[in-house]
């Protein structure tokens, strides 16, 4: 990589193939969303008809709306629970079973989703038999399932941020007279806010994308977007799905580009400020006159 900053032809080729592999399918998906033909693989001229029919498809629209609602509700709950769990793992003194606790928090990340989904389904069914709640499978059960899954990710992100944060900041706040709860809201929370935000976005993505857990926990009338797409694909490809995918790519792409732009800008500004601070201090350094000690008697 470092041979004069130039890539060898082999590396260049590998890079091109890799990018093609990643992006050609997405590109063809976008192109065919503007296809007039009903056949997905045959180009029949430019048309926006699939976009029009997409916005008339009640099933898809309600699935989109349900997915978005679940995603945000699950992310909100996961952020609260995950932050608390991360805080306990990073800041509390070790207690008996703390390793087990940390392992169990992160278990949903490594557990096969089929198991998680199935076990939750069984739990909800027995709960319904025992106490009559939840009465049906739908928004609530999916929300609980997604929250469990996402919470693990938030806990890990928040914990790693807390671990690298200077613990002295909290001690300093306490030393200056702030009580623990206040310290959490005034010092800790603002400083881990970026981790919480990225945990939230990660949760939204995970929830929007989830198919397996949802399949176990959804009931009649509560079909999420991935479920709709999956069932449609099984019945044969439909250019409406291409249109839906294109819109998704557009929205996600815009977000990523904007976020990158703002983050890069902030970083540049910060770097400039740090460089300036260093320069401002430099001339103030005096030349310590070591020679003022003198060297008497040397001819």
């Amino acid at each position, binding site marked *: 990589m470092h041979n004069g900053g130039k890539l060898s032809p082999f590396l260049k080729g590998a890079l091109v193939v890799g990018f093609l592999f990643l992006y050609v399918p997405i590109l063809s998906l976008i192109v065919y969303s503007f296809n007039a033909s009903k056949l997905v693989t045959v180009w029949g001229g430019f048309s926006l008809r699939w976009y029009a029919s997409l916005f008339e498809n009640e099933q898809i629209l309600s699935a989109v709306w349900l997915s978005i609602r679940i995603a945000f509700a699950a992310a909100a709950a996961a952020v609260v629970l995950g932050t608390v769990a991360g805080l306990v793992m990073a800041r509390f003194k070790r207690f008996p079973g703390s390793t087990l606790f940390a392992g169990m928090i992160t278990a949903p990340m490594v557990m096969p989703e089929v198991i998680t989904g199935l076990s939750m389904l069984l739990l909800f069914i027995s709960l319904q038999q025992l106490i009559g709640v939840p009465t049906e499978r739908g928004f609530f059960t999916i929300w609980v399932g997604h929250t469990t899954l996402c919470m693990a990710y938030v806990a890990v992100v928040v914990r790693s941020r807390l671990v690298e944060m200077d613990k*002295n900041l909290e001690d300093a706040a306490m*030393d200056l007279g702030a009580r623990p709860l206040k310290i959490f809201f005034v010092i800790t929370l603002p400083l881990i806010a970026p981790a919480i935000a990225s945990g939230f976005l990660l949760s939204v993505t995970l929830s929007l994308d989830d198919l397996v857990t949802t399949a176990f926990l959804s009931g009649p009338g509560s079909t999420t977007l991935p479920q709709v797409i999956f069932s449609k694909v099984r019945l044969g490809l439909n250019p409406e799905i291409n249109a839906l995918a294109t819109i998704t790519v557009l929205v996600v792409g815009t977000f990523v580009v904007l976020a990158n732009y703002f983050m890069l800008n902030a970083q540049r500004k910060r770097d400039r400020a740090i460089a300036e601070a260093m320069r401002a*201090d430099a001339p103030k350094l005096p030349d310590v006159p070591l020679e003022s000690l003198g060297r008497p008697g040397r001819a």
Partner: protein
Amino acid sequence: MKDAVASAQGAAKEAGQQAYLKIAGVVKKFGDHTAVDHVDLEIHQHEIFALLGSSGCGKSTLLRMLAGMETPTAGKILLDGQDITRLAPYNRPINMMFQSYALFPHMSVEQNIAFGLKQDGLPKDEISARVSEMLELVQMKKYATRKPYQLSGGQQQRVALARSLAKRPKLLLLDEPLGALDKKLRQQTQLELVNTLEKVGVTCIMVTHDQEEAMTMATRIGIMSEGQLLQVGTPSQIYDYPNCRFTAEFIGETNLFGGAVAVDEADRVEIEAPELGGRIRIGHGITGPKGMEVWASVRPEDIRVDIRPVEPGPNRARGKVREIAYLGSYSVYHVQLASGKVVKAMVPANRWYEAGEAEPTWNDEVWVSWRDDMPVVLTA
């Protein structure tokens, strides 16, 4: 025990100084490990006291107990007559300047300094008056709205100082106050910091591993090792009259000779020192039994180096020059004696010129000697 405390207090009163902070028999254990081992210490108002020791000696744990971040396993801490041993950190009239400064990165300089005042619920105009007074004190007025990352190391240190002084604490704790600065900036900042502290008149305890920093800044120093406070005194007391080998070697450089007491009269002690290949004579008695194992500490600057043979007697030996470290105004000679012991001697740069003698060089034979009022006898 009570009598001893009472008489000590009486002595302090006579001297016009009463203990302001009193640490009595403080112990801190972490599991089996004793981090702080029965420390007793009294500190007077307006004093700048330095706890000096190498890392892991318990000085930081002691400081954290004063701040309230740790609770002593045993013992008491009294500040201005109030028992603060178990007081929560946020209720103590004590503030601390952290080694890493611990400035809140999401707050401006002003907000950082105002933080403690806000916790006390002071009225807004009083907070802003106090903040601008503090900014004035540390000369950071024009940086008031900057964020910590926009400041250099030296500026951050001054903001941290201002923040810890803003609440006018009864006691200020400094944890390695200049440890995060580079050497050149540190020397300049030491005096600046002392001037600020003296201007405010705050009672101050600092923790440091840098003896130069402690000697420059503190009115008194406490030497700590393995959780124990070995010696407390002014910088010159500690340097001139160390009470044990650890202190003698830790503060400055010294040459230690182990030996047994051979003669102990009222006016002199003679120690049979095998490493020297002769006796060490000291011009005062120590009242110990004959044959007692003691050490004599002789500072390099008290040792005279001659190229001509000196008259036989105590406090002298012949050796060979092994190393010469030229340090400008003086040189340090490493002279190896017949026993193999290497003695360090500090020789002023004009020593040979004024005597009209040729400067000795490597492997030259020389004589080292010192006056009998120079060595300090150590029994521990």
